[in-house]
């Protein structure tokens, strides 16, 4: 499923003194199969954008209100396009339930949303609720799906299934919460700050888990992150949001060559990019893709060449 957004705008509290324009004419395409990163400051519109992807925030034209006719003499605004695979999110008759099954959304600190008495029930909840009328999955099917989901997130079914989710450790809770989202086999998995608040080892494990999911479970993974190192190490492509607009949409290798521009936007850059910049000032060019591994290899190669 491909995500295509064109001329997407959104204003919170429209028409009130607290109106905030969160998205301003955003156009962005995310191809199937990407491990996509979305960057930007708090308030840059990145969460508003990802909440559109499974219809948590609706394009106004998909709601029941009549379409507003533009006033005479004013320019007609360009038509908003928002397609996720075969779903047209600007239309009223789109099956949003089917869409949400295909686009899994993991919020920040998803472990705060655990609620059931056992891990098994918690993970099964989404699966039961997404079932269309008349085709309720059997207990057996549910059992199998839950088992698969727990297994892929790295939890031992036998050990945790009957436990209360609140008795798990922090990292385990987050895995259980992710299992509850991926259990419906979404094609696109969107995660808001998946590694926030974990200790360094926990962070690394979660990123490894996302790669496993990307390989074996969900075709497309979209992460929202503040951590530049996380983006440079993991993503195939990324977008930078600033004040409701997309300022860059590039692979990390090209994006982080714009170290100075990103710094001017008040954003951090990965450590590798800082080093590349500092070396450039000293007349040394390191042509790397900004992953730690590649940086080390390229620098060592320089040394080999110079010696």
């Amino acid at each position: 499923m491909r995500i295509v957004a064109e001329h997407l705008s959104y204003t919170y509290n429209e028409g009130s003194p607290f109106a905030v324009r969160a998205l301003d004419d955003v156009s962005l395409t995310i191809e199937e199969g990407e491990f996509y990163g979305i960057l930007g400051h708090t308030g840059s519109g990145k969460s508003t954008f990802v909440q559109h992807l499974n219809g948590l925030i609706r394009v106004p034209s998909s709601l029941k209100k009549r379409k507003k006719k533009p006033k005479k003499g004013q320019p007609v605004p360009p038509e908003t396009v928002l397609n996720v695979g075969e779903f047209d999110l600007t239309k009223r008759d789109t099956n949003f339930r089917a869409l949400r099954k295909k686009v899994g959304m993991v919020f920040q600190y998803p472990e705060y949303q655990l609620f059931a008495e056992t891990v098994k029930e918690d993970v099964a909840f989404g699966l039961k609720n997404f079932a269309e009328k008349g085709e309720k999955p059997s207990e057996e099917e549910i059992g199998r799906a839950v088992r698969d989901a727990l297994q892929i997130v790295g939890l031992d079914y036998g050990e945790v299934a009957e436990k209360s989710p609140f008795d798990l450790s922090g990292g385990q809770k987050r895995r259980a919460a992710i299992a509850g989202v991926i259990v419906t086999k979404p094609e696109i998995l969107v995660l808001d700050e998946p590694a926030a608040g974990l200790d360094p080892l926990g962070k690394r494990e979660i990123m490894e888990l996302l790669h496993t999911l990307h390989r074996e479970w969900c075709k497309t993974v979209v992460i929202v992150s503040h951590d530049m190192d996380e983006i440079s190490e993991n993503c195939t492509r990324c977008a930078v949001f600033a004040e409701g607009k997309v300022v860059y949409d590039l692979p990390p290798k090209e994006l982080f060559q714009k170290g100075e521009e990103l710094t001017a936007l008040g954003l951090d850059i990965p450590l590798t990019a800082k080093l590349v910049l500092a070396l450039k000032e000293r007349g040394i060019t390191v042509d790397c893709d900004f992953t730690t591994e590649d940086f080390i290899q390229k620098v060592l190669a320089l040394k080999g060449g110079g010696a």
Partner: protein
Amino acid sequence: MQAIAFESVDFSYGEDSAFRIKNLNFTVEEGEFVAVLGHNGSGKSTLARLANGILTPDGGKVSAFGIPAEGKNLYEVRKKVGVVFQNPDNQTVASIVEDDVAFGAENVGTPREEIGKRIEFALKAVGMEEYRHATIARLSGGQKQRIAIAGVLALKPGVIILDESTAMLDPRGRREIMEVVKRLKEEEGLTVVLITHFMEEALMADRAVVMNRGEIVMQGTPQEIFSRSEDLITYNLVLPRIRYIEQRLNEGGMSVGGTLDTQILAEEIARCVS
């Protein structure tokens, strides 16, 4: 004077809890800036909670500025040892900034005129004086955490403990907090204990302490700690990325690093390859 002193402290969360602290000795000198590192569940937060008497030890003695943290002294100790926790949304009690900052000071019976001065001082110290009459709900996470710090400062503590206070903030919020901490240390001479998962933050400290299973397993300057990479990995910590890069380059036959500073590392790489 020792701001915080633990003398052979024992502690456990009950009989069947696997975690326990045994015979822990730990001191923080007045004016010192100490970073506490360790993976989740290593005992960092327990240390913070013991230090200001939220938890009481099963054995041994905890004291702050020479006052033992027990019985009636507890109130005195809590005035001396301020703690700022992780979640900015869990630490506000009032809806207006100045009321929230005053809350702690009011509760220990600070005279009214004095409270006004304290609010002014505390908000200025965290750079939030313009927000005195603002609604807390409309502030950013970093601003809320600065208000939480101001609330602690209004009590005029001798030592401030930040228990992963930047964990839930974005990079800008984290920078704001670290700048405030640095300034408080330099200008007010405040003693700081910084509990953190961010190795980069720990680099600012005078001394770093690593905890594992309720024990202090490493101590030294941050540079010393981060040069012992194998030990760090044993304690389930990861190296700061810059240290990792230095190490790999050295393995590849270069000789760089040790300072954990980007500019210096670049300089050294430049020297090695030219």
